[in-house]
């Protein structure tokens, strides 16, 4: 009970401190912020450490193949710690190299298999549009033009020969301009959704403060009366 009471007070107080940023940056907010940074980092280090231990240690105790499989990353991980010392930093290159290599492949795989191809297919899937009849067809066409335009809006190359450049500006350029509008439509929507989502959180916090104070008051009332 008391632990929860203290917690309630602490939580409400901290929330208030952070909320004070809305009225302007101030020492109380900074205090809360530094508390937060410290807390999250400590928490994160603890959780990752324990998770790794839980995954690696059993494997280390087990027999040969698993042990090797656990040992290599362990060694590379320890090598990575050399990055902390400029003199020996180079020994960590193996570990960073593996991270970069694997990460690059993961990202590429995701981009190819998960984004480029499915999205491309989705844009041009005529049959899906037709499910919703003529309206669907129109929407589908709009999406297609918008997507192509947005893609071309990013084109980096610019031909240098005047004639070519004129042609380019006439075709790719114009489509790009249209595409840019669609990009902004998406950005605006993203802005709106982000605002809605974070508003929900903000309201939640204000609500938490109000209820917290209410609870405290009732508790005080009980203790006094």
């Amino acid at each position, binding site marked *: 009970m008391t632990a929860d009471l203290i917690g309630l007070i602490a939580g409400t107080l901290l929330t208030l401190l*952070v909320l004070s940023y809305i009225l302007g940056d101030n020492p109380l907010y900074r205090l809360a912020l530094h508390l*937060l940074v410290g807390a999250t980092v400590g928490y994160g*280090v603890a959780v990752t*450490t324990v998770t790794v231990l839980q995954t690696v240690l059993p494997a280390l105790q087990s027999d040969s193949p698993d042990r090797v499989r656990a040992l290599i990353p362990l060694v590379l991980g320890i090598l990575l710690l050399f990055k902390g010392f400029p003199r020996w930093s180079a020994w960590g290159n193996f570990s960073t190299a593996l991270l970069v290599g694997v990460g690059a492949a993961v990202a*590429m*795989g995701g981009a190819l298999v998960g984004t480029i191809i499915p999205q491309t297919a989705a844009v041009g899937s005529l049959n899906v549009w037709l499910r919703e009849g003529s309206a669907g067809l129109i929407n589908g066409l709009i999406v297609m033009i918008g997507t*192509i335009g947005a893609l071309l809006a990013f084109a980096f190359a610019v031909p240098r020969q005047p004639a070519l450049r004129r042609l380019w500006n006439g075709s790719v350029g114009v489509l790009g301009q249209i595409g840019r509008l669609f990009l902004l439509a998406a950005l605006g929507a993203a802005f709106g959704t982000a605002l809605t989502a974070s508003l929900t959180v903000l309201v939640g916090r204000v609500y938490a403060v109000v209820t917290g104070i209410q609870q405290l008051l009732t508790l005080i009332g009980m203790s006094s009366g």
Partner: protein
Amino acid sequence: MDRLVKRILPTSIAVGTGLLVLLGYLLPVPPLASVRDELIRWAVIIAAFAFILGFFNLLRVHSGRARKPGGIYSVILILTAMTSLVLTLAALLIPSLRFLGDWWFRYVLSPLQATVAGLIAFVLAVAAFRLLRHRREAGVLVFLVAALVVLLGTLPLPAPAGNWLANLRTWWMNVPAMAGMRGLLIGVGLGVLLVGLRVLTGSDRPYSD
């Protein structure tokens, strides 16, 4: 030797592992797929060690800042980090002490994190107010309309205006915004693809000189 350690070996590691993992994605047949997952698991374990690096970097930076004016915050940060580390470790390793970690998470970590996340709403509101101050292209109007439609479309306003707005919002989400989003996603995909190729062909070596 020097070159070997600093350049050749790392490059071959990066390229080799990268190609293996990529193969695992492009033809996910049993041996390749499992190799891919194994390598990814390694990457996860190595990344965990990076947390230790990060932790010490944080301590170094803030112990340095602690001596400067306003250093009190850095001191607080270091102390909190230590506390959090100890409490969480205790909670995770010793079941009987779990309540400590839970308390810390529930009454300190959660409210703070959530409230900072809530601040985003505020800064976005300020940005919305000043939208036309900085952006003077015609497109900004599209952005403005989009933001308003999405914002008001979620409101359970009384019919008919409510329904009309809600439908408009749905359409906006599924057609114009969708088009822009897809263009963006595909484009980013292409960018990723090419940086990836540079890395996997060893022409970019962020991990060595």
